[in-house]
């Protein structure tokens, strides 16, 4: 009996360590000191598809600034995140509105991403406890299936399920759950590229499971890590410039 208990304890402990290690490797790929990227967000609605392009600057998980470049209706709209606060600037009204409370759950430009999703830049290891629950193949590549449970309160999704490429340590698929256990969002990653020594998925398809439509394709058209980003970009004054 004792050897069985010891065996179970060892396996559990070993898989927990492994899961944390995997998550740490994922964080090293996905997080950075700072980065600048340009992206195209293709929103597949029930009737039409729209493409919104933007350029984003971020430093760690505390500061980020996004400017929308097209289409004309969204051009010049800017978003600033400082710590846990988010402001949006609308050039047509010349108003800067702070997004807070339930508004954070609203869709960004009609996409399957919410402002809350945009805010979440923290390292996974800081927010979740992970465990390896399975192994699966996706498009011929071996993946761990990790279950992540929130260890902090202020998190948008209480539970996540991630499929991590065993070789490249990048997520290939993800399911995001509410505290109640309801599946809220599903995302699939592809076009994994080696950029400045790290693997990074450059296409992510998000699907809000509570919303009609065929999801939102988020394509990173260019990305640069560890750039010199002027500090004034992360100020409210920069929104109106």
């Amino acid at each position, binding site marked *: 009996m004792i050897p069985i208990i010891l065996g179970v304890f060892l396996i559990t402990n070993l898989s927990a360590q492994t899961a944390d290690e995997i998550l740490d490797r994922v964080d090293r790929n996905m997080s950075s000191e700072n980065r600048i990227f340009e992206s195209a967000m293709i*929103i597949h*609605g*029930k*009737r039409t598809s*729209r493409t919104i392009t933007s350029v984003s600057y971020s430093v760690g998980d505390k500061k980020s600034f996004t400017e929308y470049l097209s289409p004309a*209706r*969204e051009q010049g709209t800017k978003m600033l995140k400082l710590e846990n606060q988010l402001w*949006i600037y*609308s050039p*047509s*009204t*010349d*108003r*800067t*509105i*702070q997004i807070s409370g339930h*508004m954070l759950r*609203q*869709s*960004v*430009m*009609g*996409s399957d991403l919410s402002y809350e999703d945009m805010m979440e830049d923290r390292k996974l290891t800081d927010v979740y406890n992970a465990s390896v629950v399975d192994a699966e193949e996706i498009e011929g590549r071996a993946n761990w299936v990790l279950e992540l449970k929130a260890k902090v309160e202020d998190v948008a999704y209480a539970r996540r399920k991630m499929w991590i490429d065993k070789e490249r340590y990048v997520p290939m698929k993800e399911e995001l759950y509410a505290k109640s256990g309801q599946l809220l969002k599903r995302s699939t990653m592809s076009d994994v590229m080696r950029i400045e020594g790290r693997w990074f998925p450059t296409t992510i398809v998000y699907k809000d499971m509570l*919303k*009609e439509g065929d999801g939102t394709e988020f394509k990173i058209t260019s990305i640069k890590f560890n750039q010199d980003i002027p500090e004034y970009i992360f100020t409210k004054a920069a929104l109106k410039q």
Partner: protein
Amino acid sequence: MIKFLFKGLIRDRSRSLLPLIVVAIGVMLAVFVRGYINGIMVDMIEQTAKLTTGHVKVMTKAYADNMDQVPNDLAMMEVSNMKRDLEQTFPSMKWVTRIKFGGLIDVPDAYGETRSQGPSMGIGLDLLSEDSDEAERLNLNNSLVRGSLPTIPGEVLLSENFSQKLKVNPGEEVTLIGSTMNGGMTIYNFRVAGTVHFGNTGMDRGTVIADIKDIQLALDMDDAAGEILGFFGTGYYDDEKSEPVISEFKNKYSGDEGEFAPVMLRLRDQEGLSLYVDLTKTMGAIITIIFMVAMSLVLWNAGLLGGLRRYGEIGIRLAIGEEKGHVYRSMISESVMVGIAGTIVGTAIGLGLSWLMQTYGLDISEFTKNATTGIMMPNIVYSRITPPDFYIGLIPGVLSTVVGTMLAGVGIYKRQTAQLFKELEA
């Protein structure tokens, strides 16, 4: 015989006057109350129709299935074509385009930062076209508390309570933060043109009214709208009239089966109004029955009094050989004459009073200004005279007189012929 009875009634006024007055008052009240209640109920239905349901409403199937959530992402596209089509197919009806929307109204301070903010429900309607009668339809001119109606694009009306809560005055700028048709966030500036009082708690709490073109621009709904409302030329909802409109619409668009196919709903099929519409229809019958029962009781009593007064006369008639049945029938014939005469007088007075109420109305704004009802209450209530008002009084008028006389006349059969002479001697 009829002539004989009629002369008797004319010559012996005590036999006819009291029942006639009772019948006339009862019929007058029945006709007047029916017209008054009909007027109030029709007004309430019409208020709801003007604001929300129309007499018929056209939407996409998907929008209609989720109507309570105001799902503008499921709104109709190319709505001007659809409206034109409806105007050509149903030329006797008036068609208007509406957009309902929700969002936050944000009031900026001098630095553009949020000074106050509150949730709102809005309606986009045609306020600026020259031939639009939407402001009149919603009685906006009379509901205006401060400022004026929007006269240029970018102006908006707020409910007075909402403007006070936000501490914003006509002339100041507010920002609508809402969702576009595509589900994205929209931020759009308006200038407050005026404030209105609706007399409805829900609407006074946080309503925004803007021109539909501004709302189309704000919500990225180019030539799109949630609803097209249709109104009958008479200005009143009519179940019978809506049937052929619905079936013609179904025939015309039967080929389109998709979730964005247009569907048409009658007023009674929206907002749980079917019970209310049915109640309006049966109100006449309910009032008639109430007055008939009440008047029968009064006339029964009057008949008993008359029977006591005519105790001697009936006794003599029976004593000289007139059959009990004949006496009973002659009294019923008399009551029919009194009933008809009373009904004519009562209907004439009742219709006269109803006409005054229909023409001038009754201002109840003092009672409704602090109303906490969920339904739309008009400030001035009017009677509504309908064809049944001209003959509806005949039923309680004649029937209650006859029933009253029949009940009172039962005593005739109880009298013993053998004792009649003793009674008469006494």
